[in-house]
């Protein structure tokens, strides 16, 4: 790569000079219309590009375009999805009309890091999903748009809690030190929040799957990159409005089967005289409203789009849901004969959430079905007033009236998010463009919870002196992004070209939070969460809990360069290198160099197979660095110790590691793309090798004084395959049916680890602390559910376990879980062997039907509800018994075994949409109307007896007796556990209207 320094300098000078001077260049304007060669219809949105430059435009709604080109431009290239691209010499023409032929090789431009590329020139695994292909229906989180649509991308929001976030994972875990999710880039803004993008504003999403594509983004792209492009206005277009409305209703799809009151009493349960279906008491039909309105257009060199989106979602759990307003402005303009371009976009989200209490669902399952809702209906005198009128089974561990939980307490949050970004580009010559980008984002979150003095659950209603609790949590996260890069494009002959991009990136993240919890409120006559000065805690030291955290300026600084070379329009070469530094690492190891290389060949050009439209092979290799989430990884961390006498000191809680260095991920990807007639196929095979992963591990307490510190400690590999198939079954002007399948599979092996093997993921209380469900072992696949094998009911109702190794004795106790003599084995794996999505689009004139099926095979789940509450434990006769078809009569002791590990294979009709579009006269104010009906989660085939068979990719540990789940610290090595705090899955029907005017 030879870069002319003088032209670089010239560029810098010129950018600055721009603000001072007004340049004019010799320019001419070319206009024209693009039509379909067969039908003569105009094509909207076709790409028009000046060959050898990044200058271009797209055709408007009338199929016309207008483009300013410089005097030295020689040719225009026209391309459109599904049509063969054409190159036309400009010569002296000023009007160029063109008719394009369908059914030829795709020639799409795909957004990649710091620019875009023709699809066929891409040498890595990249998948684009356009808005038409998104999942329909009310979506609470934009990631759900992609669920099942991209081979290798896992998106799971178990149970579908409207306030829960999906776990997003691309090609398995990319580190074990954190739950690293793919980097989200919204309109070029690295790390922008997906929560600040309304699904209705998204034009397309591109997923960069392998290391060679993502390498340009460095460490943050190590888990893959999701590039989101939002809708923009069209150039030369009058203002147009679009309205989208949805009205949906959700009901619980499934619940945990438990005993009815009669069954419970018959089974020996304590009879409290009532009959209550607790699940019915805490669930409802949730109503969802969505309204989106946008205005877009363009005039002169400027186009714009403004949109507002309102969502009001009620969860199926009483008092849960959210209300959200989102606004977005996209603006782009060109000046100085299109040499200077400015893109600006900004978005704002305000979301008020009622988180509700998922615990209500848990206690609805286990609460005594003969217990009354209200204390006045108790079979014995009960101090109802003390518990807000509700009944409580006092004296029982981990048992709270679920109706009281959900009705008496509140758990709310307000999130406000603002993102803006601006890119200024200056095309110094037709070959060289420099760009600068500034972006900032700020998110504030304010969570408030209040438990009145009469709530047993966290409100401490049994305490004579410490009743009531108010929690306050405030968080501010922000980032700043400053980037500068230059792109140099040069045609070498007519069929080869070179494109070089180089730049600098500065990213800074900040975080701060405060937490305050206090209680002891005077009474229950009002909500003292807004009147905390009444807290009697203020008179007693030590009762108020306060916490705060401020992150350091967490910075990533990088220099990067990439070269794309295409030869003979059939051989493509991409190479990039990034030198990146992070504040998180040890002083001497802060900087790392991460290269990537990719090669692609359009074989069809040379082989010319009969009827084959596309045959391309590609190979990519990339190395990225990767870091876990927390700061201060390399530094010693101490905590304050208070002396009982009032003195203060500190002690070490985590040891320093000044030698901590970058974790590295090397990924090799081989892909084949094939197209023939109506059939298309893409196959990707990859191998990921993650070495020196950073992990907080146990170290010798004697030497370090504390047994924790971060070390580079291990290696893991992932091999996987992804296949995407498409077929146009019927394709006529009146009727069409196309169908597509995405399939993916992967296997992750822990090659090296800090210890040969370990067990993790505690089952929890009551009584199963010390029972670990997951084993990880060096040289073996991750996700192993580990335990003894159930063989039947023994004496005393205890489970009999199998003598797996046949040595004549059964060693099945948890303390021996890793003993080589023990009778333990792998009982299942939490990660699916195969995941698939099956799309069907059927169009019959004005009617269309979309049916999307989704499934996963080969994964298991530990059904923890059954593990705790299905055995008929006599000393727990005040909890209800779970009662599935897998129940073992006579079993009276809860001890974990294969009995509670269930295959969770499933196949479901995820989404079915029927819509009709109406046409209007050309001069009508209404340009288009579509009415649709969508059903989500319509049927599911599975043998899993829990509420939701979808894979649990991470584990948040157990939380019992009113304790709180720590969602900030997921364990990625412990998949496959269906915990008791999951939301129940729901089924939703939605009526949708789309109106353009």
């Amino acid at each position, binding site marked *: 790569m030879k870069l002319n320094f003088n032209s670089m300098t010239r560029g810098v000078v010129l950018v600055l000079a721009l603000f001072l001077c007004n340049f004019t260049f010799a320019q001419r304007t070319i206009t024209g219309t693009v039509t379909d060669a067969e039908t003569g219809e105009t094509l909207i949105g076709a790409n028009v590009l000046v060959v050898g430059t990044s200058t271009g435009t797209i055709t408007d709604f009338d199929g016309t375009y207008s483009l300013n080109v410089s005097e030295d431009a020689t040719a225009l290239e026209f391309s459109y999805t599904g049509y063969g691209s054409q190159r036309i010499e400009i010569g002296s023409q000023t009007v160029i009309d063109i008719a394009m032929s369908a059914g030829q090789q795709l020639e799409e431009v795909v957004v990649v890091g710091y620019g875009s590329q023709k699809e066929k020139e891409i040498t890595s695994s990249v998948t684009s999903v356009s808005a038409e292909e998104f999942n329909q229906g009310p979506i609470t989180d934009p990631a759900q748009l992609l669920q099942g649509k991209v081979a290798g991308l896992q998106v799971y929001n178990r149970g579908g809690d409207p306030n829960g976030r999906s776990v997003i994972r691309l090609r398995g875990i990319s580190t074990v030190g954190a739950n690293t999710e793919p980097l989200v880039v919204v309109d070029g803004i690295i790390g922008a929040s997906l929560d600040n993008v309304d699904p209705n504003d998204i034009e397309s999403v591109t997923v960069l799957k392998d290391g060679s594509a993502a390498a340009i983004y460095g460490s943050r792209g190590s888990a893959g990159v999701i590039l989101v492009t939002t809708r923009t206005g069209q150039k030369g277009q009058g203002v147009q409005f679009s309205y989208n409305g949805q009205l949906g209703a959700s009901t619980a799809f499934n619940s945990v089967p438990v005993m009815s009151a009669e069954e419970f009493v018959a089974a020996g349960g304590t009879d409290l005289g009532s009959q209550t279906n607790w699940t019915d008491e805490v669930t409802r039909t949730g109503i969802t409203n969505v309204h989106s309105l946008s205005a877009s257009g363009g005039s002169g060199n400027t186009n714009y789009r403004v949109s507002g989106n309102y969502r009001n979602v009620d969860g199926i759990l009483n008092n849960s849901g959210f209300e959200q307003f989102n606004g977005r402005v996209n603006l782009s303009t060109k000046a100085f004969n299109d040499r200077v371009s400015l893109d600006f976009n900004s978005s704002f989200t305000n979301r008020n959430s009622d988180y509700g209490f998922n615990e209500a669902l848990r206690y609805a399952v286990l609460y005594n079905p003969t217990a009354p809702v209200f204390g006045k209906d108790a079979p014995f005198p009960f101090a109802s007033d003390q518990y807000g009128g509700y009944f409580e089974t006092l004296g029982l561990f981990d048992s709270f009236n679920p109706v009281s939980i959900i009705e008496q307490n509140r758990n709310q949050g307000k999130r406000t998010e603002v993102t803006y970004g601006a890119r200024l580009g200056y095309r110094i010559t037709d070959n060289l463009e420099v760009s600068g980008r500034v972006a900032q984002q700020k998110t504030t979150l304010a969570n408030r919870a209040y438990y009145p003095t009469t709530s047993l659950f966290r409100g*401490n209603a049994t305490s004579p002196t410490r009743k009531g609790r108010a929690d306050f949590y405030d968080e501010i996260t922000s980032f700043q992004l400053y980037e500068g890069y230059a792109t140099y494009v040069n045609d070498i002959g007519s069929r080869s070209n070179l494109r070089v991009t180089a730049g600098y990136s500065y990213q800074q993240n900040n975080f701060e939070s405060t937490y305050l919890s206090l209680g002891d409120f005077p009474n229950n006559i009002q909500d003292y969460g807004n009147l905390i000065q009444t807290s009697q805690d203020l008179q007693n030291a030590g009762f108020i809990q306060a916490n705060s955290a401020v992150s350091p300026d967490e910075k990533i600084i990088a220099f990067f360069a990439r070269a794309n070379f295409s030869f003979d329009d059939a051989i493509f070469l991409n190479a990039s290198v990034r030198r990146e530094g992070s504040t998180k690492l040890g002083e001497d190891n802060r900087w790392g160099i991460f290269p990537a290389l990719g090669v692609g060949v359009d074989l069809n050009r040379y082989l010319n197979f009969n009827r084959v439209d596309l045959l391309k092979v590609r190979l990519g290799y990339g190395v990225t660095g990767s870091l876990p989430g927390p700061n201060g990884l390399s530094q010693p961390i101490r905590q304050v110790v208070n002396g*009982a006498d009032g003195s203060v000191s500190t002690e070490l809680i985590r040891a320093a590691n000044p030698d901590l260095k970058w974790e590295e991920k090397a990924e090799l990807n081989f892909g084949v793309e094939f197209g023939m007639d109506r059939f298309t196929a893409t196959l990707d095979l990859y191998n990921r090798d993650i070495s020196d992963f950073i992990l907080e591990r146990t170290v010798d307490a004697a030497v370090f004084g504390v047994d924790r510190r971060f070390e580079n400690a291990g290696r893991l590999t992932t091999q996987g395959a992804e296949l995407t198939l498409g077929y146009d079954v019927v394709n006529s002007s009146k009727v069409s049916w196309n169908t597509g399948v995405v399939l993916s599979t992967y296997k992750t092996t822990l090659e090296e680890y800090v210890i040969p093997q370990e067990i993790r993921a505690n089952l929890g209380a009551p009584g*199963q602390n010390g029972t670990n469900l997951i084993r990880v072992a060096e040289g073996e696949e991750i996700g192993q559910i580990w335990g003894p094998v159930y063989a039947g009911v023994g004496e005393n109702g205890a489970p009999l376990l199998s003598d797996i190794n046949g040595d004549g004795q059964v060693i099945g106790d948890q303390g021996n879980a890793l003993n080589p003599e023990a009778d333990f084995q792998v009982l299942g794996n939490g990660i699916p062997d195969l995941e698939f999505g099956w799309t069907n689009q059927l169009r019959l004139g004005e009617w269309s039907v979309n049916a999307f099926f989704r499934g996963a095979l080969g994964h298991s789940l530990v059904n923890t509800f059954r593990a705790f509450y299905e055995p008929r434990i006599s000393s727990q006769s005040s909890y209800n018994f779970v009662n599935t078809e897998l129940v073992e009569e006579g079993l009276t002791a809860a001890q974990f075994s294969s009995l509670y590990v269930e295959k969770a294979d499933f196949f479901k009709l995820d989404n079915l949409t029927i819509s009709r579009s109406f046409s209007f006269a050309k001069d009508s104010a209404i340009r288009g109307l579509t009415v649709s009906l969508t059903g989500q989660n319509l049927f599911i085939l599975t043998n899993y007896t829990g509420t939701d068979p979808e894979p649990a990719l991470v584990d948040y540990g157990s939380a019992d007796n009113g304790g709180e789940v720590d969602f900030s610290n997921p364990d990625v090595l412990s998949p496959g556990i269906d915990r008791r705090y999951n939301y129940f899955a729901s089924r939703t029907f939605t009526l949708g209207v789309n109106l353009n005017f």
Partner: protein
Amino acid sequence: MIKLFKYSIIFSLGLLVVACTDLEEDLVGDITEDFSEDGVNVDGPGGSDGPLTALYAELRNSGTANHGGYYSIQEITTDEMFIGAKGGDWFDGGDLIRLHQHTYTANHPFINGAWVATYNAIATANDNLGSGNLNESEVAQARAVRAYFYWRLLDSYGRVKLVTENDTDPPQASREDVFAFVESELLAALGISEVTADMDLSASPLADGGSAYTMNRYGALGLLAKLYLNAEVYTGMPMYDKAEIAASFVIDSGVYVLCDEGCSVPNLGRRPDVTTDPATLDGYAAVFAANNEGNPEHIFSVRYDEVNGPGMNFSQMNLHYSSQFTFNFQEQPWNGYATVEEFYNSYEDGDKRKEASFIVGPQLDFSGSALLDYAADDDDIQLNYTPEINELAPNSSREAGARPAKFSFKQFGRAEMDNDFPIVRLGELYLIRAEARARQADNWAVAEADVNVLRERAGVDPYNGQLTEDEFLAERGREMFQETARRTDLIRFGRYNDTWWEKPVSEPFKNIFPIPQEQINSGGGLTQNPGY
């Protein structure tokens, strides 16, 4: 001119790039430097521990009186206490049964927890000693407190690394070496080279008496007495003579007196409406009460405080859920630890220690009404702690077992308790001297005089020729219940491997806990103890 412009642009660009490559991490939200080294402290009402604040706090933080570490592995491995599995409740993967039945392995989480917490405490001592900011007295205190933590490792694990401020990664030492280190550190703090009857402690930088929260000469001597009493177990060499001298020196100093007649504190657990609740706690009961600060029998104690000194959770660990309403506790108890029936029955009626140490029988709430257990697994809805226990597992009764309550509970108590926990107290020194004399004389009658001092306080008849080795062990058990002494005692008397309730005979190698597997795995070169 253009050229100058160009160069200045290049120059400022270069400057920008340099400025924008600064990756220094300033952890504004965390503490990364030890400020105990600077001697920062805020003087409180009771004087100050100064730079040793964190070290004395480690006595609380190291599992001395809570669940899951040192206290647990010392108590529920013995014939004193157990935790029954009540269905799934308190089964905990069998960890608690394994401690009771001596089937623990190197993977036991409590055995690892106790190890880590102890080394964490030792690291704090080493931080202090290495800082160079301590005065002579503070150096002696830090060394003696560190020696106490090493004594815990010596007693529990035997072979450990002797990490000091000067040697951060020594090889694993033999049990004999650990013994020698503990002995020499305590002797150094006392300013002597050997324990002798006519020793002169005036050269010791440690205080001559004073607060039990500060390691003083008598505290260090008391620790030496315990060390010598068990020397035969630790090294094979009996040192009962030295144990006797050390114990005698403290007893004879007259600085401490047994808490007996007239030694009394208000009963903070009293329910105004329950007439059987006494107004005061006297004698033995006062030694362990919530307001036992400054008790004349305490020589070296761990200072617990419900606000500033957390780490004692007996009310949570020992009592049934419903007992919250007896004491108006702010948090619901957990229904875990209870007393082995035979142990409870080894007290004769009228022994004041029996009354002080247990809660048994039908329970009343704060107002004197019957305390109800709505989830009772017997027919009786009133909570009734029975000394009888149906079984250890899997369906141990929710109400079974007398509940340890020597460290007594106060009304409106928090999850964290206020009672100070004695590590060295005068009562135990009488027992040490008695045993040391008997073993030297090979005659247990020699021990009667000292033992009778304690029996008289307990209100039971003195021995008169009846004392045997077995009886002495039982008597020691009654006096030292719940003070983490039992495991060490059973081992010294050769009884730790015996069978008792729901516990089979165990192998002798169980007398030393395994080195935790996690520590071996961490790559520091530790090797496992024999047998595991």
